């Protein structure tokens, strides 16, 4: 593609190539991280060794910066309503939450890779990238709504012990997924920049079309 003749097209392809490379890097990095978490949850859940359990208990006791002078993690733990030991007995459930998170993440990244592939070809306003953008928007929207609703449900959890265990393991893993997906703000930043960039190109194309006689 001749850059002087097709500056917009060339720029779109360059950005597409960059996005393609970064997306693959991000996908591999996160899949590896989630697989490690899955292996850990499965290992902890099935083996359930006392030492490992204690590590997790200490981690949760210190979670959110809870430190009380002169109190052991166990004493702090006893102040909290839900039962850590029971939670750890159900730790294997986390495996399925992380697996679900992994599937959603891979789908999300596959959509981003489809957008990048289309941009690499110089196709910004094609049917495929637009449909991928729309699906991506729905995934983020549903993810956000589920997160908010789950947070509200959490206010009423406690009536059932099983519900409590399920709720807290879910919250922990979804928080982990949220961090990898949107908690850093990278993806939202990317989406906002991508949309503004597409709109800018749409404006330039419209300008060109208006100046076609």
């Amino acid at each position: 593609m001749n850059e002087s003749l097709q500056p917009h097209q060339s720029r779109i392809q360059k950005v597409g190539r960059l996005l393609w490379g970064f997306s693959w890097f991000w996908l591999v990095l996160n899949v590896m991280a989630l697989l490690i978490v899955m292996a850990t949850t499965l290992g902890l859940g099935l083996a359930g060794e006392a030492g490992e359990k204690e590590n997790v208990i200490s981690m949760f006791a210190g979670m959110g910066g809870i430190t009380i002078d002169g109190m052991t993690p166990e004493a702090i733990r006893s102040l909290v309503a839900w039962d850590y030991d029971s939670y750890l007995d159900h730790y294997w459930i986390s495996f399925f939450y992380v697996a679900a998170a992994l599937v959603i993440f891979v789908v999300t990244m596959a959509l981003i890779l489809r957008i990048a592939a289309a941009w690499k070809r110089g196709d910004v306003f094609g049917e495929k990238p637009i449909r991928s953008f729309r699906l991506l928007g729905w995934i983020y929207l549903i993810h956000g709504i589920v997160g908010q609703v789950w947070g509200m449900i959490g206010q009423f959890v406690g009536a059932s012990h099983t519900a409590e265990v399920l709720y807290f393991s879910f919250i922990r893993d979804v928080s982990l997924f949220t961090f990898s997906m949107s908690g850093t703000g990278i993806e939202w930043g990317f989406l906002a920049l991508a949309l503004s960039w597409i709109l800018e190109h749409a404006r330039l194309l419209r300008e060109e079309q208006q100046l076609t006689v």
Partner: protein
Amino acid sequence: MPIIVNLDVMLAKRKVKLNDLAEAVGITPQNLSVLKTGKAKAIRFSTLEAICQHLDCQPGDILEFRNE
């Protein structure tokens, strides 16, 4: 842009007014003015064909490439 539009020259040679050409070609005088002043980014073959037909000339008489 190295493409020069010589529509004004052809209009003068054929003693045709811009508005008359616009009417004959079927585009607005404003759009034809955009072409005449060199502000246009592109020209449709159908427009070029109609202009050439009406002014009895070749596309090369209207468009010229100058390597700047």
